[in-house]
């Protein structure tokens, strides 16, 4: 197998992995702080992607503005879901399955609203209008500006999240909620407000991830859903609760989907249509063999 192909796969692993990491930490956050397995996380990503698309086509193609608005809109959508659906429902002390069903339904509602809009305004398979430019080219590798937007931004945001969690009052409150919700309430942490802020954060991160993903690939109403399988795989590798595990898992998934897939295809002729099965196999494997994932016990 040629070196160029290998390096190209590695680069794509890096890009995919970074984006998966950004998407997955939001999901882990929802699971640990809000205690909700959010089956609508994919749609927050899609909302971000579509916001970026519309902004880039209508308002400005400057990456910072595009990403910033993607963050904002997705954050608001996430908060709305919480206020309109999850919080009122949670007051009835429902089972986990009821909440999952609710998030499942919410996700589908958002998705088909996007389908409606995309159909009406012919917004399928468009690319976000951020201009492409080659920034680095030599014998082995060609890197465009997209690479330099996707990877550093994702990594930077993940680092920012880590800083928020470890060094701010909000982060401390969020961790308290994750550890022991009852105790947190008793010692007077404003649970409702922390929940609100968490959703804004989760939505925003997913939105930016969606925007970046849209820049990296393309935009369509299913874009979040198609990525979510890999994102779940990353979260499962992180044992559902560990951030470092999730991030590592994200890169592992990215690596498997790109480098390993490429290698398998090259040496065994395995068709690329098999690629979506990879995250699934990872999930089953982890849940069966080592449910705590990459975490140390």
């Amino acid at each position: 197998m040629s070196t160029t192909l290998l390096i190209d796969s590695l680069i794509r692993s890096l890009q995919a992995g970074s984006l998966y990491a950004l998407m997955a930490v939001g999901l882990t956050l929802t699971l640990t702080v809000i205690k909700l397995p959010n089956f609508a996380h994919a749609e927050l990503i899609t909302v971000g992607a579509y916001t970026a698309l519309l902004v880039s086509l209508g308002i400005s193609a400057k990456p910072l503005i595009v990403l910033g608005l993607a963050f904002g809109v997705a954050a608001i959508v996430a908060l709305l879901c919480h206020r309109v659906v999850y919080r009122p429902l949670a007051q009835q002390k429902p089972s986990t399955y009821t909440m999952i069903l609710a998030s499942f339904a919410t996700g589908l509602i958002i998705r088909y609203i996007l389908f409606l809009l995309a159909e009406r305004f012919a917004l399928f398979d468009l690319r976000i209008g951020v201009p492409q430019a080659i920034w680095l080219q030599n014998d082995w590798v060609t890197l465009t500006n997209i690479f330099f937007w996707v990877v550093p931004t994702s990594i930077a945001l993940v680092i920012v999240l880590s800083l928020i969690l470890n060094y701010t009052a909000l982060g401390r409150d969020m961790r308290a909620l994750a550890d022991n919700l009852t105790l947190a309430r008793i010692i007077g942490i404003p649970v409702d407000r922390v929940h609100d802020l968490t959703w804004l954060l989760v939505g925003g991160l997913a939105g930016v991830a969606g925007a970046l993903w849209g820049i990296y690939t393309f935009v369509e109403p299913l874009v979040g859903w198609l990525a979510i399988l890999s994102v779940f795989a990353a979260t499962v590798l992180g044992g559902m609760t560990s951030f470092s595990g999730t991030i590592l898992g994200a890169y592992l998934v990215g690596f498997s989907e790109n480098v390993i897939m490429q290698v398998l295809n090259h040496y065994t002729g395995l068709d690329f249509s098999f690629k979506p099965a990879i995250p699934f196999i990872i999930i089953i494997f982890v849940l069966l063999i080592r449910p705590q994932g990459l975490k140390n016990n």
Partner: protein
Amino acid sequence: MNIDLFATTIALLTFFGISAIMALSLNLEYGVAGIPNFGQALFVSIGAYTAGWTYTRLLPLLAGEAVIDPCGSTLGQALQLRSTIMKTMPTVGLTNFVITLLIAALIGGLVGYLASYPALRLKQEWYLGLVLLVGSEIVRIVVRGYEPIICGNNGLSAIAQPFHWLRDSTLSSLLFAGLVLTVAGLVYLYCERLVRSPYGRLLKAVRENDAVATSLGKDVARIRGQIMFIGSALAGVAGVFFVVNSGYASANDYVVALTLDVWVMIVLGGLGNNRGALLGALLITILDRLTAITAIRMNMLGFQWEFNYVRYILFGVILLLMLRYRPQGLLPEPTQTTRAHEMLGAEGVAK
């Protein structure tokens, strides 16, 4: 626009019958036994893919003909062959259909049983729901991209229903509707009997508190496996009916939205209540057809929005409203479910 009322009613009843089987299956799995099956689309699709396989590989053999590759260059020939067989050899068609039902039930059941295995070791119970949801999507994507099963993205057409050979198409639809409703009725009776028996009592115990059930000596893991087998087998049967009804097997029919549909049916109708499942299936089928007809009407009137998507949004909203305001459904689960209560006579006074 003229809507042929008779034809529409028959179509509606057929869809209702198929939906009823799916709803009863999910009600058994979740409503009664508490297993969250978020991958129903998968088991329904197994029925469809089985039919795709039997209609292209088995049917010719039963008719004494050679098997022609249904995909690729011989696509037209293969299609012609099965069309001809279904139109001219009714007994062969019927035999093939019955065999398809049996195989679909078996494979669907086995896959369901295997899928419940990971659940045994999972830290949280909802992981099973996740695995099934993800699994149903993966299978759909792989089948769509990988040719041999149903010719990839092209799908397979001319998967005809067993009464197709009748020259009168209204009669043929009517008979098929009758068949579907009969099977749905049998499934209902079966589910009712199951729920009213000691086994039903066992399922409800496992649903509510599997730790206590275990301490009472019940093998919870095995019971869950059994229910997944039964439920998934039923879903597979529904899948066969589904695909021969439309005549066309395509992976895209088994999207996650199908799973949502069935969940809306049982939540609307009433969790844990078989009659509720039927009611939910009926209401959702009617709603579904109404939105389809409205969509056509609106498009003809120049309305620019694709109304079919509204259907999913509507169902999602119904589900959310039910969960919030009436989680027990329209027909709540009855309190005295097992026959034992009748056997004891009028001694107990219900509070």
